[in-house]
């Protein structure tokens, strides 16, 4: 079995022992009475074998289980949907699957399970699938993990795919591990980049240790290789109505679709109520001169599906609700995107939003402190830039709708 072995010929001084302990980022090296040991805190990062090869050696497996990878073919995309309405992450995964499949000369295959969906497979072909397998059963009307996992198992046993991509939604993160564990195979969560080697090994990149480090992960000796990817990481290819592909309806024994779960009710999710929960925020600042001018801010938020927040002066003026104040005396936010409009950026405001993923700041004063933390500093007048921006966004949306109908 692969392991790290300690080679220690003589007793080590306390001073040297302490220095050796320091090299382990996980504090897993122990030093007791002149002797070194490794605790269960070891993460097998092998740093000790590089830093102190005189004491630590990595012993590789004598025999690795080899599999014939040529028996596993195809890049699968699991079709995520709500009562037949396909989740856009599926199209993004299809775009990536196309890329991977072409690299190794495989086909892109969709697994589509649900009820009353038999006529919905065509769209998947237009977005890149070569073959679509549909399981259309009453028992699959609502998502329940056991029947869905049973269908997935049946599908994998028949298709023997090399790669399986699943959207990193709450359903994907429930189903993918269930099926991966059933096949005792590898699953890499929330991949941010995927590429494929000639031998069909999937090169999976994901953030590790809280996001400050990236890890390159492989499923070396198992198939299929499961990966989940969050929404809005990859890009869908353009819809091609002339793309050809095949659709096959599959059947499965009702016996396998039993479940210990009964769905009592399904209701639409309420929209985010608090600015802390919003993915996108548009912030109105002192640059807004009159209360009625807030209209352009609300319109911008509307276009972006965002919520409106504000700085303290606007709340004190009674123009906005105290619940939407950002800053030390207000709320701390961390949205995917924040657009500040006419906000100079006081210390207390910045403290409440500086961890936002992307910051676009619009302000007339090129020396405004907000520009010190903005990813994109836009030196301009909100009264001129925002109306122009609204026009362009509307145009973008119209084009997008045309692509998706």
């Amino acid at each position, binding site marked *: 079995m692969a392991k790290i072995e300690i080679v220690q010929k003589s007793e080590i001084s306390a001073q040297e022992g302490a220095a050796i302990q*320091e*090299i382990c*980022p*996980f504090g*897993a090296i122990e030093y007791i009475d002149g002797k070194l040991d490794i605790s*269960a*805190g*070891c*993460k*097998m990062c092998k740093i000790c074998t590089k*830093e102190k090869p005189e004491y630590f050696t990595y012993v590789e497996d004598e025999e690795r289980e080899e599999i014939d990878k040529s028996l596993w073919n195809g890049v699968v995309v699991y079709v995520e949907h*709500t009562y037949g309405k396909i*989740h856009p992450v599926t199209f993004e995964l299809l775009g990536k699957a196309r890329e991977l499949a072409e690299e190794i000369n495989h086909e892109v295959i969709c697994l589509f399970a649900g009820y009353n969906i038999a006529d919905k497979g065509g769209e998947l072909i237009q977005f890149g699938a070569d073959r679509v397998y549909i399981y259309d059963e009453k028992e699959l009307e609502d*998502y329940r*993990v056991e029947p869905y996992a049973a269908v997935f198992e049946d599908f994998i046993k028949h298709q023997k795919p090399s790669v399986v991509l699943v959207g990193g*939604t*709450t*359903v994907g*993160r*429930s189903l993918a*591990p*269930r099926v*991966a*564990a*059933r096949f*005792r195979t590898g*699953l890499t969560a929330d991949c941010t980049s995927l590429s494929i080697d000639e031998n069909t090994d999937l090169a999976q990149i994901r*953030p590790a*240790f*809280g*996001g*400050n*480090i990236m*890890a*390159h*992960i492989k499923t070396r000796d198992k198939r299929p290789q499961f990966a*989940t990817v969050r929404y809005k990481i990859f890009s869908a290819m353009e819809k091609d109505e002339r793309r050809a592909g095949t659709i096959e309806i599959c059947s499965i024994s009702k016996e396998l679709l039993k479940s210990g*779960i*009964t*769905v*009592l009710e*399904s*209701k639409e*999710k309420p929209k985010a109520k608090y600015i802390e929960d919003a993915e996108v925020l548009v912030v109105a600042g002192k640059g807004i001169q009159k209360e009625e001018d807030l209209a352009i801010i609300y319109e911008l938020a509307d276009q972006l*599906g*965002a919520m409106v927040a504000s700085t303290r002066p606007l709340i004190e003026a009674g123009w906005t609700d105290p619940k939407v104040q950002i800053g030390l005396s207000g709320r701390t936010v961390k949205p*995917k*995107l924040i657009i500040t409009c006419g906000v100079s950026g006081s210390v207390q405001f910045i403290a409440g939003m500086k961890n936002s993923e992307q910051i676009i700041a*619009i302000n007339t004063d*090129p020396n405004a402190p907000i*520009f010190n933390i903005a990813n994109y*500093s836009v030196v*301009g007048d909100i009264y*001129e*830039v*925002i109306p*122009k*921006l609204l026009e362009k*966004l509307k145009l*973008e949306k119209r084009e997008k709708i045309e692509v998706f109908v």
Partner: protein
Amino acid sequence: MDITVCIKQVPSTSEVEIDQETGNLKRDGVDAKINPYDLFAIEGAVQIKEQTGATINVVTMGPNQAADILHEAFTLGADHGYLITDRKCAGADVLATAKALSEGIKKIGKADLIICGKQTTDGDTAQVGAEIAELLDIPHANNILAIKEIKKESLVVDVDMPTMIQTIEIKLPCLISVDKDLNQPRLPSYKVKKATKNKEITAYGVCDFEDSNEMHYGMNGSATQVIRIFPPTSNSNTESWEGTSDELATKIADKIVELKIL
């Protein structure tokens, strides 16, 4: 009812960094606190115990100092603590972690309900719970927002789905992973802390498990391998845009499209 709660000790900060020159991890990430999502799992179990009576077992995998979080769980209302500690479990991926925990849960004995936090703040995969359920062959539900009813043979819970909230009845035994909306975790009780200070913790190693084949645990039992680690490309890029308002609006619109906000 017998409830087993799976918990994990995680670094108290996410300040683990990588040495740009050597590519090695810098030592800052020593595990210290209970994974925040696990507090909702423990609180959920304690509320069930208060309503219907239950025994709460907490289990964790890690080095000896992970016993600290089991003691912390005692102060929050847990009854028994189990520590899976074995170098053979080192370097475990999702599969090997789920394997060790599922064997530990079997070893503890009866579990009508297994509760996990939705995810950990270090590994962040949110997938160990579902794999445990698979290995134990019981149903599971992820991202539970509310426990609405506790029946003799089932639970009624609200599940967070991509676009819907689903209310389901799930048969026991089962596994649920819980979200932060589930409850407001209580503060540890000082009185209980004093009373449970010397409470014994049961330690398990791979040799105690029903499946004691060491090839099924740790790095050897992992289906995935970390090929290398590297620092992320910095996204702290800053750009300053000037120009006519039309040019500026175009730049902003392009960026919004690029960020897939529309």
